[in-house]
């Protein structure tokens, strides 16, 4: 039996030793030239003889934010299909989407980055969405020399010093500054309470709002919510006792619903300024209309806009995925990233001559 165990152990060691082979080296040259692992675009079977251009998508398909991950996948697929239907890019080359799940998890985001780095055909990656995952995986993309389009909004992301990282969305410096401007200029508040989740999303915005409001002479009362908290009555009552005349909420989906409900039930009847999450269907559908009546939202995209471009985009999305599907922030941002001419027409041929 000892011999059997020793043989098993030796085999395991050999596998471990060989596992290091086949990954990319420090210069980003890849030893593994296997094609994209999971092309899903409907237009993948192109009649074109030219090699396709592979784009990675690091999406949160599983985990707490899977609903938004699903939107990311649909938006990217829609964008790729439209580009391919229009004749492709760079002289008729089709796009192929390679989708990997980062599960809204730092470790998984790094795993995904390593998968893309080991695939020499990937020319660019869209995602990850969250700032934490961008911070965790950016060094892998940098070493592999793969440009990636991060969709996080934390203000510190601009200090990464990574020439391969492109930030697509407006930073919280802009978004949260807009919220602060609304509170100070439009709502004329004097005492403002800030409900924020203690993650990189909520904390980054809270600091910007606090700074702006304090500079304008307002009294600021930040109240933290931990992700996963199931009760915020303490924070709301604290704000009531301090006599806040305006509340800013910068939280994740579940904490939004909780805050809206408990603020309504506890009678905190003050103007509320909220982050983009409140514009999302999955949040609004969980809230009674009374809870969020009169709330303001700071967002990069609203699907009920009357702008013709937005209407056309929303209609095309609904046609593609069914009437109940509403094009929202996640859809708009991922779609705009993939369809942006900036990368594929200008940058990619210069930085990725082998793949573009």
């Amino acid at each position, binding site marked *: 039996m000892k011999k059997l165990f020793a043989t098993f152990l030796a085999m395991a060691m050999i596998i471990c030793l060989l596992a*290091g082979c086949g990954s990319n080296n*420090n210069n980003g040259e890849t030893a593994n030239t296997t094609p994209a692992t999971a092309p899903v675009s409907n237009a993948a079977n192109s009649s074109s003889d030219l090699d396709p251009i592979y784009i990675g998508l690091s999406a949160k398909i*599983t985990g707490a934010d899977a609903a938004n991950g699903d939107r990311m996948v649909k938006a990217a697929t829609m964008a790729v299909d439209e580009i391919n239907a229009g004749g492709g890019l760079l002289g008729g080359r089709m796009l192929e989407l390679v989708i990997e799940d980062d599960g809204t998890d730092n470790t998984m985001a*790094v795993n995904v980055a390593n998968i893309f780095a080991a695939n020499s055909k990937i020319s660019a990656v869209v995602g990850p969405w969250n700032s934490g995952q961008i911070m965790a995986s950016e*060094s892998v993309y940098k*070493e592999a020399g793969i440009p990636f389009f991060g969709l996080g909004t934390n203000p510190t992301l601009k200090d990464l010093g990574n020439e391969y990282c492109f930030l697509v969305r407006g930073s919280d410096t802009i978004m949260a500054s807009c919220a602060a401007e609304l509170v100070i200029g439009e709502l004329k508040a004097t005492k403002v309470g800030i409900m924020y989740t203690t993650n990189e999303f909520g904390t980054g915005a809270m600091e910007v709002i606090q700074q702006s409001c304090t500079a304008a002479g307002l009294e600021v009362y930040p109240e933290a919510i931990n992700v996963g908290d199931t009760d915020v009555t303490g924070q709301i009552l604290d704000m009531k006792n301090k006599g806040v005349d305006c509340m800013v909420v910068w939280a994740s989906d579940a904490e939004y619903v909780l805050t809206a409900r408990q603020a309504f039930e506890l009678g905190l009847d003050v103007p509320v300024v909220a982050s983009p999450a409140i514009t999302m269907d999955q949040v609004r559908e969980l809230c009674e209309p009374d809870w969020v009546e009169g709330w303001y939202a700071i967002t990069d995209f609203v699907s009920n806009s009357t702008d013709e471009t937005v209407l056309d985009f929303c209609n095309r999305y609904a046609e593609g995925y069914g009437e109940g599907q509403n094009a929202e922030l996640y859809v708009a941002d991922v779609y705009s990233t993939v369809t942006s001419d900036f990368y594929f027409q200008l940058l990619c041929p210069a930085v990725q001559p082998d793949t573009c």
Partner: protein
Amino acid sequence: MGLAGQSHLGTIALVALGSYSSAIISQATGSTTLVGVLAALAIAILVGLMLGYPSLRVNGIFLSLTTMSFAQIVYSLANNMQWLTGGAMGIKNIQRPNILGWQIENQIQLYYLILAVSVVLIYFTVRLTRSKYGRAMKAVRDNPEAVESVGLSVTKLKLMAFLLSTIFGCLSGVFYTWVMQYVGPTSFTTDQGTRFVVMMMLGGIGSPAGMVVGSVLVTILPEILRFMGDYYQLVFYSITLVLLLVYPKGLIHLFSAGKAKVLNWAKVIRKGR
């Protein structure tokens, strides 16, 4: 801990402590990795003693709850002590290790370094379980009164188990920091800690080989199943559940059962001759 029959559900907190201490010290001093590792080890010993002594008074489910609470405390501190840990934003741009002048330059070199250290640690664990201390720890798990009656100190043995688990946990945190080059609190939630419990249960509690089998399965299986698209997590956890139901003592006991069967057959064959 499993060897001594102690249920520690706060392993993720130890990983976090090792990860943060090495990152903070390395960033603050700009010094070599060795200082970060030593800092992590110092923290491990300190925490092992601080957590170990009070935990001697509790057993079973109460010890599990104590260690789970410890994990939550560490997570909350990491998330809120912005001046030290960077708060929710964490600590980024952590340099790869430099081992006595040898600068690790890529993930492959790092992989082999961690593999080599892991092999040494696994060998140490195997030797420990077969040593007199290992046997004494097993005895603490099975019959603490009998251990006392032969003049061994259950307190010291439990404390030793606590110390070893904190040292291993903190070292794994250091490795995690080297791989990620970024440390943030979301990597150390209690949800993440559950993965360690699954690793232990799947492999076999109290067995070094079981730990290796469990860790490899929980880490690699989801990656292998990625081709299943949206359903890979569902399939992974279904497989895990079935394995836990079929092999409640862990997969490593497959080998034990196999060994018994082979010996049995060998006996039958020999008798037949």
